[in-house]
């Protein structure tokens, strides 16, 4: 019996997108610090500008180091292509501007990172794009909210910071019935713990700053195209199915087939909005990807130890982590995260917001930082920081209790993290 013999995830994480340099023998890709790239002749230049040939023109559009990062992420997510961006938020805006025009509509999970919630609630409406928020655990609510103007369903694999788990399969199926794609923010899971395309998602984005980097050193984002969504049949996406004047009437679905979306995202989105990734950032992120699988295994192991401690700590009111049996979407989590549910968790200390404040100010090893997915364990109080711009209704819709604390467990010895939390929890109860 013959069997396929394609490389596995860990091999792709180390090698995809990069070949040893034939000129120098270097097995790793250098940082290509070059704003532009030399054309062979004027015809070559014109062909590149007219999307006739692949190649690099100018680092805002593409760069060899950045392209290696993009191809590696695409390989890990099983996507046809990816575009790297200046941040995770830039990746989200790139997806929206590629698919939508004024008057378009989004149906989004209400359990969102604060920056995304702000973009959807306050910023996009100024440009004529509106959003209906629905509970992430009610796929039928996505169905009810879809209108003829809907161009995107959106959710986070694991909602930040409340840890809601999106039922990707159910929501994607609802979207596909009505010709609407699902974009998933897969930041908290990373492609190692969850590959949303396997469950039917059409597009994925990451804040690469988090687990992909793994070291809290750089800001970056990446948008990945599954190549599966049928833009032609949907009838909702003239941006991809009708001639685009600035490139001599190119019809992206005709020319690029399964890569139509990601081709337009690069050709228009990076050209016009320009939120590109620097090659140096891409280099750091490539290094991060090489150890992603090993790091995620350790992150999960450590997180489980910390969760085990928190659920029995007398100072803790409740703990929310998708692997816990009392998590509302525990079954979905088991289905989607066969290797573990990440290393971010939410919990509240007894004594409400004030006790939460004392906890955060009392940790020493666990750092008070507005980031996650770092080698260092990080803690934050979302209601006063990452989600501060949400009003009470917005916080309630996102399920954010005022006393909620978000903890991202790092790669330290978990005993040391627990000892630090234990001391800080005791101090949190001393008014």
């Amino acid at each position, binding site marked *: 019996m013959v069997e*396929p013999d*394609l490389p596995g995830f860990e091999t792709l994480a180390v090698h995809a997108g*990069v070949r040893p340099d034939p000129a120098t023998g270097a097995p790793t890709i250098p940082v290509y610090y070059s704003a532009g790239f030399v054309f062979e002749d004027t015809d070559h230049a014109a062909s590149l500008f007219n999307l006739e040939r692949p190649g690099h023109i100018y680092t805002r559009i*593409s760069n060899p180091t*950045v392209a290696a990062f993009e191809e590696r992420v*695409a390989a890990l997510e099983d996507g*046809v292509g990816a575009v790297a961006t200046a941040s995770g938020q830039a990746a989200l805006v790139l997806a929206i501007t590629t698919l939508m025009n004024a008057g378009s509509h989004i149906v989004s999970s209400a359990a969102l990172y604060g920056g995304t919630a702000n973009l959807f609630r306050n910023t996009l409406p100024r440009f004529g794009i509106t959003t209906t928020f629905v509970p992430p655990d009610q796929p039928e609510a996505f169905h009810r909210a879809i209108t003829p103007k809907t161009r995107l369903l959106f959710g986070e694999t694991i909602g930040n910071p409340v840890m809601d788990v999106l039922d990707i399969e159910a929501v994607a199926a609802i979207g596909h019935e009505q010709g609407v794609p699902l974009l998933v923010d897969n930041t908290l899971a990373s492609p190692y713990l969850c590959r949303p395309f396997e469950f039917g998602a059409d597009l994925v984005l990451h804040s690469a700053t988090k687990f992909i980097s793994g070291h809290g050193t750089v800001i970056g984002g990446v948008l990945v195209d599954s190549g599966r969504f049928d833009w032609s049949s949907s009838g909702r996406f003239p941006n991809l199915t009708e001639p685009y004047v600035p490139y001599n009437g190119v019809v992206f679905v005709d020319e690029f087939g*399964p*890569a139509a979306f990601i081709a337009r995202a690069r050709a228009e989105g990076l050209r016009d909005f320009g939120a590109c990734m620097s090659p140096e950032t891409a280099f750091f992120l490539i290094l991060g990807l090489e150890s992603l699988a090993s790091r995620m295994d350790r992150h999960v192991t450590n997180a489980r130890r910390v969760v085990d401690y928190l659920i029995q700590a007398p100072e803790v009111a409740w703990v929310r982590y998708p692997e816990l049996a009392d998590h509302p979407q525990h079954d979905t989590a088991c289905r989607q995260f066969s290797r573990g549910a990440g290393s971010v968790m939410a919990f509240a200390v007894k004594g409400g917001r004030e006790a939460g404040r004392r906890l955060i100010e009392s940790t020493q090893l666990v750092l008070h930082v507005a980031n996650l997915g770092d080698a260092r364990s990080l803690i934050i109080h979302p209601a006063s920081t990452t989600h501060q711009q949400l009003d009470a209704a917005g916080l309630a819709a996102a399920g954010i209790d005022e006393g909620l604390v978000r903890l991202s467990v790092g790669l330290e010895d978990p005993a040391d993290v627990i000892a630090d939390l234990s001391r800080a929890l005791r101090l949190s109860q001393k008014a």
Partner: protein
Amino acid sequence: MTAGFVHHGGQVGTSSGPAVVLLHGAGMDHTVWRGLTRYLAHHGHRVFAPDLPGHGRSAGPPLASIEEMAAWVLHLLDDAGVTQSTVIGHSMGALIALRMGAAGVADRLVAICSGTRIEVHRELQRAADERDRKAVELILSWSFGPWGRLGGLSDPGTSALIECRRVLQNGLHVLGSDLRACHTYLGGTDDAAAIPAPSLVVSGSEDRMVRPALAADLAGILIDARFELVPGGGHMLMVQQPERVRDLVDRMLSSRQLSGSQVLSSQADA
């Protein structure tokens, strides 16, 4: 009979230049030619890259034999008033191209990753007949060499292997029929021996779907052919190394006449 989707490289009805027909392989569609279609259309050629019936955006059941496929393409050209054309085919598309060449339609012929016969592994045929995605993974495994499967040579930020995976998954419903058409077609040798047009046969050194030796044999049978072996290239050569294939096709289109069969080996992509 010829109703179907034809991609013209973005130059619908505006080009009167020499015609170029690009024929995709089993279970695939016109998008595998994206490294060529738009370029050729904007460089003076009248481009026809059809989706064969049942493939891509063309409706209908798949055609069951290479002869029927060739007849379908000939009708398509007839309808467009094209009597002579450069015919470029990949794998199964190259078998169709040989049939067209023997019919006297081709003024130039480019066969990519094909021999005079394409024998299909039994397990691949079984999986394709059952619409089992294993068929796609087997083709990808045999189509991308040790480096090709790790990527790094196609469009910036895209994965050639996953693009091919997606195209083949979309065409899984016709893959079994196509593979059977390839396996049962025995006229390739006679077709090749009857083709006077200047021809180019291109193969990838890592192609395990159609071994380079079979492609070299085809070049040896064609009357006026050149053989080009691309080191490191696999079966999906025009997706995996679009610039290399574009360069070879460009040189072919600008050449007048080749001087008998010869074997060349490119070192550019070693």
